[in-house]
């Protein structure tokens, strides 16, 4: 009996949800009283359509993006069909009259060659084909013609020609933005390369000097340290792959700490807490090592006391939480903010900022560095990395 009641209740709930959803949908489209004059409403509708078509185009001019974009854009024209082409193929065709593909493509090639839009008549033997005339407008990015927008309909009108040109210009702007996104990614790549090259000349110099001090007294230790140094630099200068595993990143940190210890001996205490299931997680290459370097630097180089650094990696379901903590001098929160914004001076905390930016770029803004610090209170840096990267 309870079962029957449950099923009935579920069905009722479903029906209610359906009705509510339907109503809401109707309201958002149809009932726009109180939202201005008809002209204003038309403007809103146009802007809304444009905002829907923009996200796919931000991925650049691909078949998938084109298919999604033309589906959104066609209502703007009210004509029979709409197509997007890149330099040599028709990427997407929305609406009837697909058999005119070749005619359209020929016109697109002309436009690509000249860089100027035009209209053209379409011969069709099928009596009920709605496509009689077409308009092509070029898509230009940085003065280069990347593709074309084709509008096909029953007849020619100045309004359609104008609309085609305007929409083509709007699509061009979106593609330009996509280009900008790509440039930004490239810039980050360049930055990580710079970071690698920058693995701090100081560190190289200090390590070699420390190793040299062991060469006579403890040649075996010196040899080991040199090997560590070799491994560490090989990892840091490695060229392939933007990602590595947490295991490898930790191994590099271990080598780094071994070299630091050669110089500072017992003054440095390091505690490691690792949940073993997070070790295979993929992390951006060199995303932790700079943080550890920072912690060690704060702890050792600016005080004489014993320095303590804790590195913890914990399992949090779909994410990994990594915490790096030191008991060093800490920092003014304001200064830290400036460093992360990028105006803390030419040399200050480039590693920190770079890691923060890369994390935000790969995983989104909610995965940037979380830093807790104060003058004389040490520093605690928390990173949350998703186990799976979309």
């Amino acid at each position, binding site marked *: 009996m309870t079962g029957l009641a449950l099923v009935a209740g579920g069905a009722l709930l479903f029906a209610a949800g359906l009705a509510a959803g339907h109503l809401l949908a109707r309201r958002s489209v149809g009932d726009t009283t109180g939202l201005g004059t008809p002209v204003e409403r038309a403007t809103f509708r146009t802007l809304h359509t444009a905002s829907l078509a923009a996200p796919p185009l931000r991925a650049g001019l691909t078949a998938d993006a084109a298919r999604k974009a033309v589906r959104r854009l066609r209502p703007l024209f009210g004509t029979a069909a709409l197509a997007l082409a890149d330099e040599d193929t028709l990427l997407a065709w929305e609406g009837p009259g697909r058999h005119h593909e070749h005619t359209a493509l020929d016109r697109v090639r002309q436009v690509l060659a000249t860089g100027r839009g035009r209209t053209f008549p379409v011969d069709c033997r099928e009596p009920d084909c709605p496509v009689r005339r077409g308009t092509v407008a070029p898509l230009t990015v940085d003065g280069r013609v990347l593709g074309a927008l084709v509008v096909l309909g029953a007849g020619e009108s100045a309004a359609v020609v104008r609309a085609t040109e305007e929409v083509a210009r709007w699509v061009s702007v979106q593609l330009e933005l996509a280009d900008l996104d790509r440039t930004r990614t490239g810039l980050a790549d360049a930055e990580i390369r710079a970071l690698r090259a920058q693995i701090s000349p100081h560190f190289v110099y200090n390590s070699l000097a420390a190793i040299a001090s062991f060469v006579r007294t403890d040649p075996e230790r010196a040899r080991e340290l040199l090997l560590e140094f070799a491994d560490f630099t090989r990892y840091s200068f490695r060229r392939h792959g933007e990602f590595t595993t947490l295991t490898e990143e930790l191994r590099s940190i271990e080598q780094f700490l071994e070299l630091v210890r050669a110089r500072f001996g017992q003054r440095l205490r390091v505690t490691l807490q690792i949940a073993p299931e997070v070790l*295979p997680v993929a992390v951006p290459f060199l995303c932790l090592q700079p943080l550890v370097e920072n912690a060690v630097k704060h702890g050792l180089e600016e005080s004489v006391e014993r320095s303590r650094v804790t590195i913890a990696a914990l399992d949090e379901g779909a994410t990994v939480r990594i915490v790096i903590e030191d008991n060093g001098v800490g920092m003014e929160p304001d200064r830290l903010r400036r460093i992360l914004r990028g105006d803390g001076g030419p040399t200050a905390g480039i590693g920190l900022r770079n890691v923060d930016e890369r994390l935000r770029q790969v995983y989104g803004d909610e995965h940037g560095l979380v830093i807790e610090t104060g003058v004389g209170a040490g520093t605690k840096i928390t990173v949350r990395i998703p186990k799976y990267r979309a």
Partner: protein
Amino acid sequence: MNQTYGTAAVLAAVLATLVIGSAGLRISRTTSDFYVASRTVPPYLNAMAVSGEYLSAASFLGIAGLVAAQGVDMLWFPVGYTAGYLVLLAFVAAPLRRSGAYTLPDFAESRLESTAARRVASVLVVGIGWLYLLPQLQGAGLTLGLVTGAPRRLGGVLVAVVVALAVAAGGMRSITFVQAFQYCLKLTALLVPAVFLVVAWHGDPGPGAALEEPPAFRRHTQVTVDSTVRIRLHEPLRAVAAGAVDGKRYDNAALLLDPGVHEVRAGTRLRFPPGAAVPERDGGSGPRTGASSWATPLSGGRDDHPLYTTYGLIFATFLGTMGLPHVLVRFYTNPDGRAARRTTVVVLALVGGFYLLPPLYGVLGRIYAPDLLLTGNTDAAVLVLCERLVGGVAGDLLGALIAAGACAAFLSTASGLTLSVAGVLSQDVLPSLGVRHFRLATLLAIAVPATASVAVSGLPVADAVGLAFAVAASSFCPLLVLGIWWRGLTAPGAIAGLLTGGGSALTAVGLTIAGPPADGWTHTLLAWPAVWSVPLGFLTMVLVSVATRDRVPAGTEAAMARLHLPERPAGATS
């Protein structure tokens, strides 16, 4: 059962879980330990964790109960639960690890490049998770009820609260060690008492031939009927009753029932003399205790179409294992595809070894606890045997050990499932609400099945788990197998297959659990959907994919290469 020992054992199991869960990190203070601390989990440990999470209340309690009640056909349950890993090993384990996906929705998204496919997969994961959590909580209620005397529904809710707190408070910082420990506990909890039980059984005069005959009471036995039952008698029955039988009140009066169907009201106490045959439950949704067919396969003890139901069981369990959300998550801990495959092999051995034990308990339960057949409470067989057969303080202690094992069974599976469901809920279903959001998701993940476990009762634990397997087999098995082995899979095809296969199985399951009672083929088809819903899922996925051939994801070749090529060229070192 001795309540002090039992309660202490259950508390100890819970405490050990929480302590290992919150402290199970590898800690090093010197650089030389660094290497040890940053070593990935070896396959054997990971396999123990997978097994620990996999062996649920259904395995620990349910199988023995089903075998006791319904005979050798039910041996397909342990066989199927184990063989599922064979299929996983052959088709899925290594490629799935190489894909880098942490959950099934991740896999759907990375392989098909579609967020819509991801969303559908998420909804199904949550559905399967809830369906699987329900019997865990029911098993918890049963165990805690027997051990501490608490009302049954309270036990389930109590465990739900414990699991929610542990997961939401981040008390499972290192779940691998917890689950590995739970496996050891479960194995010990069945193995040690089993030795005592077998010895006691051998010491008992004349238990041998009892299996072929209808079950009978071996000594004076008093049975309290919890809910009204109809019993069918084949020969006259003498008993002493206190309560209502066939609408007539008895007050500790002798009772002689003729062959035929009789109704015993809830709350009635019946006392049987030694040698009396155990009355057979008649009809209803409870399991039937086929009288003489117990030791013969396919003899119609359970359903109208035993051959069909056997195949239904085989399809669901063989193909459903790969689609269980909490199993997959553990495979991510393997560093690469090779390790994933090794882990699966070890899991096969560990799980296979464990499953030798529950049937033994089932057989002994039929001989020594036949009253459970009458009350329908067969899931309790494992828990009461030690008290009945060994007795004394030794019996109480062994019983407490088994109670601790049962507690481990539902705790480990329930916490693993809750973690997986909460992860999917917080990532894909709920709107983003910041940090506290995972805790909310955890509450939702456990609250729904906890509520359902209070509302729906009376479904045997192993049966309910079988239904969850059926849904997993008809939705995620096609997605994984085709996604890994067929280039032609498209996002619309996968979505259509998930919806038809999983949706139809889910509907059938829903009707079986909560719908109106049905009989004959309708009931059989709905209760064992896997035979038709798995092919339906595959077929829909293939046909729709072929129809939408132009929508094959652009990155298919790259994705396939990633799934099937070894991570690192052979011989290369880094």
